[in-house]
């Protein structure tokens, strides 16, 4: 079982990202779960989304988890959310930021003993450059593919094309570019 926790603001696409990831994973014969905790939260409010991935049907419906990956798609939440809650000695962090990894870690005490498990990517800037607006969810998935090695980039991009099929070609192409850049730039 792989468990993933997203830290996001309502409107940044964490739910769509979690469901998109679920969609891709389901096409490889695995079972998935994608859900969010947002209640009646409004756009801009801090929220969490979650994924579970397993080889057998997922029947655990509790919202708590010890995540294998923590994905932070809003830069400020790395400072204000408890992003290390319920973590494990192996939990990996991918954080959206325009800071370098060292700059970021030096400002967040909770990450200082986890340096080798922290990865940074500027998913906001990448989405502005490629999609034309701040939409850090799909670039974060590109970064996750690199860090986790879950699927190779070409397979993942092809699968995401099908997930995004309802959108105009221009938007699909922009998302492909965003995921590719994040895959290459995460460190």
């Amino acid at each position, binding site marked *: 079982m792989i468990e993933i926790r997203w830290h996001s603001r309502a409107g940044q696409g964490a739910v769509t990202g*979690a*469901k998109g990831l*679920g*969609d891709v994973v*389901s*096409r490889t014969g695995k*079972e*998935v*779960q*994608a*859900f*969010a*905790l947002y*209640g*009646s939260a409004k756009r801009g409010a801090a929220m969490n989304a979650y994924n579970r991935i397993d080889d057998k*049907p*997922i*029947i*655990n*419906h*509790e*919202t*708590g988890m010890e995540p294998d990956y923590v994905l932070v798609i809003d830069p400020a939440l790395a400072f204000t959310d408890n992003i290390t809650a319920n973590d494990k000695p192996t939990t990996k962090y991918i954080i959206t930021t325009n800071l370098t990894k060292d700059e970021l870690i030096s400002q967040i005490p909770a990450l200082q003993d986890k340096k080798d498990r922290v990865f940074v990517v500027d998913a906001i800037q990448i989405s502005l450059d490629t999609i034309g607006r701040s939409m850090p969810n799909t670039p974060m998935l590109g970064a996750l593919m690199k860090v986790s090695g879950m699927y190779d980039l070409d397979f993942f991009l092809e699968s995401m094309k099908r997930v995004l099929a309802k959108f105009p070609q221009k938007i699909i192409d922009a998302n492909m570019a965003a995921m590719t850049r994040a895959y290459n730039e995460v460190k």
Partner: protein
Amino acid sequence: MAEKMELNEIEVWDGNYAASQALRQAQVDVVAAYPITPSTPIVESYGAYVANGYVDGEFVMVESEHAAMSGCVGAAAAGGRVATATSSQGFMLMIEVLYQASGMRLPIVLTVVNRAVASPLNVRGDHGDMYAGRDSGWVQIDAFNAQEAYDLTLCAFKIGEDMDVRLPVMVHQDGFVTSHTAQNVKPLQDDVAYNFIGKYQPYEEMLDFTKAVTYGAQTEEDWHYEHKAKQHKALMDSRDVIDRVFAEYKELTGREYNRVEKYFMDDAEVAIVALGSAVETARYAAEELRKEGIKAGVVAPRCFRPFAFDGIREALENVKAVSTLDRSCPMGAMGTLFNEVSAALYTTEKRPLVSNYIYGLGGRDFSVAEAKRIFKEQKAHADAGHLTTPIQQFSGLRGPKLGFFETKRGN
């Protein structure tokens, strides 16, 4: 003709979308709706199917849930296949008309996404609304995940519309935990799903002008009692039809449903009885505890109504201790599942120890660890030969420990 939708063998759907797809495949004639969180996406999606030509039906926007169910009653009496969705306060506003629908024997399908009832206001899930429907004369079927929300909504049409039943049917799912959680769902193709349910067969429809009928007549003392007793018998007798529809669905899909679901019960010593998504979390806990040597099992009434008094009794009569989990605040009494399970078990020789937990109100998380703790507590009851705690307790509640009533057995 409505357009067909190409579906993948495996889709990743949440419970709401799964239910809406079942309504589309049933080719519902009329949906009269007043959307409410967390069931909004069901009727929202249905509206989109109508607008995009995927359903040859009518989507009627009304001004309240009372009007929504009233519209459904009218359309069903006219002779159409009818459905809608609601939750919580919306369900409460529908209640008056729910009794009208069942009294008129109209096979409407209501997809209920269970949510806490105010006050205080809360959009998250518990079973307060589902429990409020339990005397309304509807068949109430409970789905524990998105796949089941889809499957059971299809089955609901076939059950309610059966000429031996002709009663309205609710299909429940948990707000957010099921309705907004996307999981692998294996849908049927459109033709297969529609053919399973079949073409709607009207009965005494008002639009048949060759044969005038009255719906909702006034009876007073003269016939009311006989009418209600007949309605109760129809709901009791629907058990056979439900079994048959579930068997046919298994034949078609391989997915098995029973009026009482049993997990690890063949040799279970201790059991949890629950409804909704907690059933699956408890299953997960039971599976883990079995590795520690605790023979834990889970029993779930798939049909909240008609209540499987006999099925519950057979499932539980050989266990030593049972915890009944109610996700609705009983307000001055024991929980409903406790009362109904206890009543069934009272008629057995061995009379297992039964206790009651209130849990998960307003969306409070129900964890695997908590399910394990409850199982272990049942084991302690079983080993002692009597309840070692108050009969009614509260799971996951902050503040001082709350409990009510002590057992008079075995102390």
